[in-house]
C-alpha cells in the first residue's frame, strides 16, 4: 500500500495533551476530536492538513495520557501515517489497535522537514522523500503486531479470537 502526502514536522516528546487537549475529551466523536487535533502545538494544523498527509516527529511521540482520542483525532484529521524515531508505549499500542499506521525510523525522523513531499510503502516500510530525493527504511514490526495490523486493528483481531 502506497501513500503520498506532505509532511508536518514536530520535535521530541509530542504529548497527548497537545495532540488533543483534555478540554475536548468530553466527547468521543471522531470528527469533533479531529477539529482540535494538534491545537496546542500547531494552531494552523487543522486548516492546513490534507487527506493523506504525514506527521513526522523525533523521539517519544505520544507520551503522556492513555487517551485513545489522540490516535483517533490524528486519523480523523486525514493524516495517513505518523513517522517518529520512537513512540511512547501506550500510544504505540493505541495506534495499532485503532488502525493508525505508524513507522519507527531514525533517519526519516531526522531528515524529513516540514512541507517535504513523502511517499510511504506500508508493506515494505520504505519511506521516500520526493522533495529531497532520498529513501529511508523503517524498522520492521514484530510478527505479533503485524497480525494486528493485518486485521486493521484489535477489534477485528478480537472478533476472530473471541
Amino acid at each position, binding site marked *: 500500500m502506497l501513500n503520498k502526502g506532505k509532511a508536518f514536522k514536530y520535535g521530541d*516528546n509530542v*504529548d497527548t*495533551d*497537545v495532540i488533543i*487537549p*483534555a*478540554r475536548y*475529551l*468530553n*466527547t*468521543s466523536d471522531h470528527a469533533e476530536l479531529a477539529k482540535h487535533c494538534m*491545537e*496546542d*502545538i500547531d494552531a494552523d494544523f487543522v486548516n492546513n492538513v490534507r487527506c493523506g498527509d504525514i506527521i513526522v516527529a523525533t*523521539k*517519544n511521540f505520544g*507520551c*503522556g*495520557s*492513555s*487517551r*485513545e*482520542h489522540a*490516535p*483517533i483525532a490524528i486519523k480523523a484529521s486525514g493524516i495517513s501515517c505518523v513517522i517518529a524515531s*520512537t513512540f*511512547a*508505549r*501506550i500510544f504505540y*499500542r*493505541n495506534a495499532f*489497535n*485503532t488502525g493508525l499506521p505508524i513507522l519507527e525510523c531514525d533517519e526519516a525522523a531526522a531528515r524529513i522537514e516540514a512541507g517535504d513531499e513523502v511517499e510511504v510503502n506500508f508493506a515494505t516500510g520504505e519511506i521516500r522523500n520526493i522533495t529531497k530525493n532520498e529513501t529511508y527504511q523503517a524498522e520492521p514490526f*514484530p*510478527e*505479533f503486531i503485524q497480525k494486528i495490523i493485518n486485521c486493521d*486493528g*484489535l*477489534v477485528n483481531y*478480537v*472478533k476472530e*479470537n*473471541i
Partner: protein
Amino acid sequence: MGMTMTQKILAAHAGLKEVKAGQFIEADLDIVLGNDVTTPVAINEFKRMGAKGVFDKKKVVIVPDHFTPNKDIKAAEQCKRIREFAVSEDIENYFEVGQMGIEHVLLPEKGIVTAGDLVIGADSHTCTYGALGAFSTGIGSTDMAAGMARGKAWFKVPTAIKFDLRGEMTKWVSGKDVILHIIGMLGVDGALYKSMEFMGEGLKNLTMDDRLAMANMAIEAGAKNGIFMVDDKTIAFLKEAGDKPYTVYAPDPDADYDETYIIELGKIRPTVSFPHLPDNTRIIDEVGDVKIDQVVIGSCTNGRMEDMRIAASILKGRQVAKNLRVIIFPGTQKVYLQCINEGLARIFVEAGAVFSTPTCGPCLGGHMGILAAGERAIATTNRNFVGRMGHPESEVYLSSPAVAAASALTGKISNPELL
C-alpha cells in the same frame, strides 16, 4: 537467566514457567479498569467486537472521576453511558459520585488490587498499583474493550531498570521528590518500554503513600510499569484494605537488569519540575523567584491521607498569600471524611483554601481550577505539559505537598525547610 518481578508476574499469568525480554505473550487479567473519559470509547469498541458480555463482572472496575461531578452536558452524557453499561453488565465495582474517588487512590484503599495481580487500566497512571507489588499498566480504550471481552491482553515482555534505594529521606522530602529526582535523571523517555523495579534496604523507610506516589509517576519516565518489592509495610497495607489473596514475587538473584541505579534517599532535596516536562527538574535551592497564581494539592499522585496531613501541618494557623487560589482535593471520600475527622478540613478552610470533593478535574485541565493565559500554578499532580491545566500559555510546576503548601503561604515557590 533469572526473571525480574515483572517478568515473574507476566509468566504466571500467561501460564508459562519462564518468559524472556522481547517475547510476546497473552496473559490473564485480574482487573480491567476504566474511567469516564476512556470507558465510553471502550464501550463502542466492545460492541463492535461482538462481545456478549464482560468476562467477569467482579474484575471490571469503572470509576467516573475525570469530569465528575459532571462538568457539562457532554460529560454528563458520557457518564450516563458508562452508568447504563455498568448497570446492564452488572459491574460490581462501579463507583458513583458520592462513593467514588480518584481511581488510583480508590482501588488500593478498597482492596481491589493486591500483590501479584496483573492489572490493565485505560488510564496512564494505572502504573500506581506497582506500589503494592502488582504488575499494572496503562492501555487505551480498545485494549480495555478487548480485556473486558476476553479477560486477556497481549504484552511484550519488558526489560527492566533496578533502583536500589538506600538510607532515609530528610524531613520535608517525600516519595514525590524521589520520583521527580529519578525522572529528572532518566528523562521522560529514559525508561521507555521498560519496567522500573524498586528495592533495597531504604525501602523500609518509605511509607505506602510514598511508594504509591512514586509508582504513579513511572509513566512520566516512559516506563511500562513501576513495581516495588513487597515487605511488611505492604502486607500490613493489603490486610487493612481487604482480604483478597495475594502472591509475593521477588526478583531472581540472577535477574537481568539493563541498568542499576543506587538512590541515596538522604541526599535527595525537595524537587520541582519546571514547565513543560516532568524531567525538567530543579532542586528547591535552585528554583529562584517564581511567583504563582494557584496551588493545587491532591490528585492520584498526592491525594492520600499522608499528603493531606503534610499540607495541613504547614497551613495550620496560617493564611494563604493574598490573591492566591489554593485548591486542595482529597483522593477519595474516605480521605475526605478522615480530613474532617482529624480537623484538617477546618485547617484548610480557615487558611483560606478550597477543600473540594475528589475529582481528577484540575490536574488535566478538566474543571475545578483552570488556568488563564500567563498564569502559573504549583501542583502536586503528575504532568506539566503545555496546556495541561488550562490555557496553552499557562504554566504548571510539579512538586511535593510540602513544597506546594509552603508556596501557598508565600505566593511563590518556597522551601518548606525555611518556614
